[in-house]
């Protein structure tokens, strides 16, 4: 692994993002607007807004980074740049870490704007402080990134890549405990939700709110999310083959 190559890759990915002004605007503005929308949908029930709002701050970057990465990596594959990179001294890890670094920066901006608006104007409560919220959101974004990287190997076109969003993300969203508490689900659904990584991200955010600080339990939830990210990243790296048919 080479620090120069990793940093150059991160800078390159950020430059590509920055050159696409509309994507940047959507990336930064949409989660914030949705938080505002949510706030007024639950205008009569601040408690509901608080219990849904906090986990959503982690789910937005998960969804965005999943989409952005699956399309970006698909472009690397179809444009021939990935094949070219794999004939250079660049290691696969350099490429993956470069992407991770770039998307971590993008996530910090996204979560920064959304949190600023949510915690000040919308009066969303963060009993444990803002830092743990941002930390969990960041871990979630990287989880989304690694899953996006993995599914890009199974998509031949951008149409297909986009269809993986409802296929991979929506089931996790339905089962993550945001719509219905996980312990009240049918056994089968609860078991499924137990093995889906997004459940732990939402659990972590919920516990942050109910327990009022970054407890060991929250740490465990975070660790599960990070572990799933590493596994997905390793599987994704295995799909970056130098030799193809």
């Amino acid at each position, binding site marked *: 692994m080479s620090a120069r190559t990793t940093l*150059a890759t991160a800078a390159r990915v950020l*430059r590509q993002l920055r050159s696409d002004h509309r994507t940047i605007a959507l990336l930064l503005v949409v989660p914030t607007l949705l938080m505002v929308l949510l706030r007024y949908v639950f205008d009569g029930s601040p408690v509901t807004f608080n219990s849904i709002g906090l986990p959503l701050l982690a789910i937005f970057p998960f969804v965005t980074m999943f989409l952005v990465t699956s399309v970006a990596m698909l472009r690397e594959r179809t444009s*021939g740049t990935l094949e070219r990179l794999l004939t*250079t*001294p660049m290691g696969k890890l350099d490429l993956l870490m470069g992407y991770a670094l770039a998307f971590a920066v993008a996530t910090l901006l996204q979560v920064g704007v959304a949190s600023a608006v949510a915690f000040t104007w919308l009066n969303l409560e963060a009993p444990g402080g803002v830092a743990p919220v941002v930390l969990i959101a960041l871990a979630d974004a990287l989880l989304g990134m690694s899953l996006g990287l993995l599914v890009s190997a199974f998509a031949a076109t951008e149409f297909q890549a986009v269809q993986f969003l409802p296929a991979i993300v929506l089931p996790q969203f339905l089962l993550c405990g945001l719509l219905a508490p996980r312990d009240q689900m049918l056994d089968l659904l609860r078991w499924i939700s137990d093995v889906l990584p997004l459940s732990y991200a939402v659990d972590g955010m919920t516990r942050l709110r109910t327990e009022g600080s970054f407890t060991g339990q929250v740490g465990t939830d975070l660790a599960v999310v990070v572990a799933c990210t590493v596994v997905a990243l390793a599987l994704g790296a295995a799909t970056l083959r130098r030799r193809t048919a």
Partner: protein
Amino acid sequence: MARAAVEVTNLMVDRLGRPVLRGLTFDIPPGQITGLLGPSGSGKSTLLRCLVGVQRIRSGDVTVLGQAAGSPALRRSVGYVTQSPSVYSDLSVGDNLRYFAAVARAPAGAADRALEQVGLADRAGDLVGNLSGGQKARVSLACALVGSPTLLVLDEPTVGLDPVLRRDLWALFHTLADSGATLIVSSHVMDEAARCDRLLLLRDGRIVADDTPEQVRLHTGTDDLEEAFLRLAEKEEAVA
């Protein structure tokens, strides 16, 4: 003679269940331009992919600069330009060059020098997506030159270029070869064959000639390389 830059023995490749390369054996001398000529679909791109180690092969050996093709030690010495330009169209020309220079671990200034070599020094600030097809191809070439490779594998680098640019690029290829680099250039245009030091004529996954342009002309009894190729192909068919 110095050791061959590329040694290929009994190379067989299948793609989608069909044989594409049917047992190729040849050497490529160092410090020369070898032209890989043949019609579309004859297996040129597949063969070049084997040389840079990105093609899954069925059997055979491919040795490049004394190492197995695609081995990590080779990645700093081999430059590869694919048929369609593989650069980032949403970045500027200069940003592409600087990125591939960093990836190739090239020294500072390599990016600017490579842009000058392909005659695009004045376009460094332009977005690649806004360039013409020929300009994109030259950016892609510059991104391979940036690492000063010892072996350059170029898949149809002059397609879609006007005659003046083609002449300039061939002059560049000869300059690179004169300074010791080995170049393998594929083309389906026969008039480019005359500019090579050596020719490999490929047809339907088989080599029909491996010689200097002069010898190919001599053996086929024609000065026209296009006609020479036709005669070789006919001879091949008569044998088969």
